[in-house]
């Protein structure tokens, strides 16, 4: 069991506190999502400007185990990352990881730190395979996951519709623990 909060010194010299997300963080979380560049929001799985959706997602779906971490700089969320897997069934050994970082905290090592925390959690939960799902047109994110040891599994054509209604190919990457 990993203990939180943890302090992490980012490459930009700022120290952030990392801890699991709670329901009390909704306002800060909406502010974080609202502050992301529009181009970034296109690449997210859900429309994070919709407060109802953000709030609904605070409660994990039934029969899923979810760990969502946030990185706080003062009282501002600067990154959010999660890992989730089914609590039972034939694919309970497969997890999925996601990470979103505010522009001023990118290339500071924070995303890698959060993902390593989540991967350690996944291993402790006996996950054997961890997936990342992203759009094919995100080369920097793809390189980031490759550096963590993820490999490309393949593409599902037109499986992503962004909030403007445009289709993109979905890339699935995975890591064996």
């Amino acid at each position, binding site marked *: 069991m990993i203990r939180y909060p943890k302090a992490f010194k980012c490459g930009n010299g700022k120290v952030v506190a990392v801890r699991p997300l709670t329901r009390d963080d909704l306002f800060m979380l909406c502010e974080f999502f609202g502050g992301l560049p529009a181009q970034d929001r296109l690449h*997210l*799985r859900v429309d994070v400007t919709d407060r109802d*959706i953000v709030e609904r997602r605070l409660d994990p779906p039934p029969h899923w185990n979810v760990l969502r971490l946030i990185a706080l700089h003062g009282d501002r969320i600067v990154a959010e990352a999660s890992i989730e897997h089914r609590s*039972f*069934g034939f*694919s309970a050994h497969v997890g999925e990881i996601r990470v979103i970082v505010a522009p001023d905290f990118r290339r500071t090592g924070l995303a890698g730190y959060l993902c390593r925390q989540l991967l350690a959690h996944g291993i402790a939960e006996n996950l054997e395979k961890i997936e990342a799902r992203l759009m094919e047109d995100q080369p920097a994110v793809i390189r980031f996951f490759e550096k963590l040891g993820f490999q490309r599994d393949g*593409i*599902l054509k037109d499986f992503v519709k962004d909030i403007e209604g445009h289709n993109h190919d979905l890339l*699935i990457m995975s890591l064996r623990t």
Partner: protein
Amino acid sequence: MGSYPKTVRLRDGTEVTLREVGLDDLERSHRFFLSLPEEDRLSLRLDPSHIENFRVRFEPSDAQDHWRLIALAGGEIVAEAALHQPRYGWARHTGELRCVVSPAFQGKGLGSILFAEIYQEATRRRIERLYGLVLREQQAAMRISEKLGFRAELVLSDHLRTPGGELKDMVVMTVNIRDLWRRLEDLMHTMDGQGRERH
């Protein structure tokens, strides 16, 4: 199409009733899944050996993003088709379909009828891309999907762990909904007037 229950006649003259699954179908549905060959159960990623696990499918949260249709003969379920669509998010235009027909009712056109029903529901939900997961070794299921226009697009290696602990690959079969309709029309046409809906 679309209003249930309704009775359809299969290629061999057998009549089955199609309707959406209800809360009181839990035990009936459990019996059906227990009766299936293990390979089918694995492909459905559903372990019916514990009814508690099975109950998930009848919880209100399940009904929000799943649509389930059953085919009944003699009061028992002989096939189930399900469509899963995320309620929101970047995959809201995609739907995962699962379809299973009991061995005794295979080869009678029931699968095609269920796919046609799924197609109607998927269209109503504005789904553009449909997909299904099959075990890589389930060549027969892959052939049937290919006849309907699906193609193997991605392999998810070691995606499934059998109750015995063995890891197996799954194949993601995908189709554009328009292509599915063209194939379904051809298939229904070759049924020569049978396998049609009867009111």
